[in-house]
């Protein structure tokens, strides 16, 4: 539950990551809301309190509350948000708490975007959390909605119409992919993930090597952002998709953080030997 040790991240990532995490920290309201809860030390200390005993208490308390918060994220999201926010009061640099506060924010705004092209048959979400996490992704309505674009009556279903036959146009997908990779390097992971999702949607349908290589890069960009956002299991799935699209796909060891590399290796092991993973899953 504790933050990953800083030495696990490559140096070029540290500064933007710090910047990013400081941006994610709840601003003024959280600062004024750092009051002790009943039974807590007052005034509420932090882990860097000059008093060793207070600092130790803050450390143990933040760990205790983190362990309570994590399993609550789906069943009592607002409570999880309050817990993560309080952990940030105790341990302002706690990256788990920062991403927890972000993940569990009780009011999230998504601007719906409509992408050109035919509707894509989405895979059903594996669970409720995944379904809720993807609410704001862009939408494709397809050419059958041309009437609606002109303001006339629209057909009701989004599933009408099949994929339009068209020559592969990688431009939109490549632009989104490049943006996702750039945003990852700038440690703007939420935006990077959104760009990767747009790239997914913009990628032409097909199984040609050109499509598959791009698909692998898109999934890897998504996975990198997901690791940074603490969404490890989603990251492993994305890396799995990348490897299934292009089994020769590899990450650059020199510029990839060990945490991302571990997620990739775990996904690769699962792809290489699915039975081993099933056995491991069964053992759990």
């Amino acid at each position, binding site marked *: 539950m504790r933050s990953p040790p800083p030495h696990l991240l490559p140096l070029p990532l540290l500064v933007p990551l710090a910047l990013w995490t400081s941006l994610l920290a709840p601003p003024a309201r959280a600062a004024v809301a750092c009051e002790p809860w009943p039974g807590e030390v007052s005034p509420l200390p932090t882990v860097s309190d000059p008093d060793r005993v207070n600092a130790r208490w803050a450390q143990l308390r933040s760990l205790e509350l983190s362990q*309570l918060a994590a399993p609550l994220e789906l069943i009592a999201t607002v409570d999880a948000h309050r817990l993560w926010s309080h952990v940030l009061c105790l341990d302002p640099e706690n990256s788990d708490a920062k991403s927890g506060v972000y993940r569990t924010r009780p*009011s999230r705004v998504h601007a719906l975007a409509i992408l050109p092209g035919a509707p894509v048959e989405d895979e059903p979400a594996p669970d409720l959390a995944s379904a809720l996490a993807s609410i704001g992704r862009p939408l494709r309505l397809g050419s059958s909605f041309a009437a609606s*674009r002109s303001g006339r009556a629209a057909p009701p279903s989004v599933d009408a119409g099949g994929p339009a036959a068209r020559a592969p146009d990688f431009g939109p997908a490549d632009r989104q992919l490049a943006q996702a990779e750039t945003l990852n390097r700038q440690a703007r992971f939420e935006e990077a993930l959104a760009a990767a999702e747009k790239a997914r949607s913009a990628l032409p349908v097909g199984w040609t090597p050109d499509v598959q290589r791009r698909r692998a890069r898109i999934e890897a960009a998504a996975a990198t952002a997901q690791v940074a956002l603490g969404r490890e299991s989603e990251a492993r799935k994305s890396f799995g998709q990348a490897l299934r699209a292009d089994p020769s796909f590899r990450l650059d060891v020199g510029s990839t953080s060990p945490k991302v590399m571990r997620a990739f290796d775990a996904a690769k092991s699962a792809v290489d030997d699915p039975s081993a993973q099933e056995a491991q899953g069964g053992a759990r």
Partner: protein
Amino acid sequence: MTARRSAFSLVALSLLAACATPSRSAGPPGLLAVEVLSGQPSIPSWQPATPPRVEVVLDTTPSMTRTRVDGTQGLVAARAAAARTLRDLPPDTRATLHLVGGPRRGTTCSDLPGALVSESAPPAVLAADAASAPERGEDSLSASLGRLADSLEGAGETPRARIVVFSDLSSDCGEDLCAAASRLVDAGATIDWVVVGGDGLPGCLEALDGGAEPPRPIASQARSAPPRVSVTPRDAMLVGGEVAAAARVEGVGDGVAAPYPSGLAFVGIDLSPPLTVGPVAIAPDARQRLRVVDFQNASPPVREWQIDLESAAPATQDAPAQ
């Protein structure tokens, strides 16, 4: 013979006690504050009787037909997005579709504010209904959310509600959307706003954070009273039994300094399990503080203590020992 030995033992014990107790009167007492800094008394539990429920709120008011998103009519885009969200849900999800809009086209805000049309069904069924939701009359999204809040509160389901609103947020009825949203969030619901076109976004929506008070299962846990403290001179402990009991001075571990006999002593704190610290040198005419960090629910349990000399010559004492 046995009686004589017993008598001797009693005399010896008395002498030892006399030797042991003088430490109480040998010099001026020292002040000692004992404080326990603990974690949660026990692991609080959140036991949802039922899993989360998803409330999809689809705005079908006239503004949705006027607004446009990427060239598409807002209502068309909102229907499609709501249908997709419902299709994404696992089949066993408890879901409800709420259509916001007056009963018929041409109705105005004041006709029946917040007249939600709600339907609970498997997500796939609701997806089809969302995809074909008709345009309805004017109505207030804020009032509709207020009605939803009433309904969720009545069922005791607000903390489990995941609300997804598809709307342009263009209120034509002049009500306070932020207040309606705040009511839901403060009661434990979460809201995703999928904004379809529209002119502007109320800044308050992203700032809603549900407040900073502790979650109820944590706040409602009874905190035990400060533990009892006993200070026993080391010499008396060496003799043991009744002597130790006679020499013991009782206090409370509430962080308030109290006088205790100076000299080497063992400090017992009535925690679970009990803690004995020492021997501690209680300095005469000094003020010391013993603090215990106690997290018995940690894995492994943690209990650490530290004693600090706060001042060599205390000006005052906070409270008398008992």
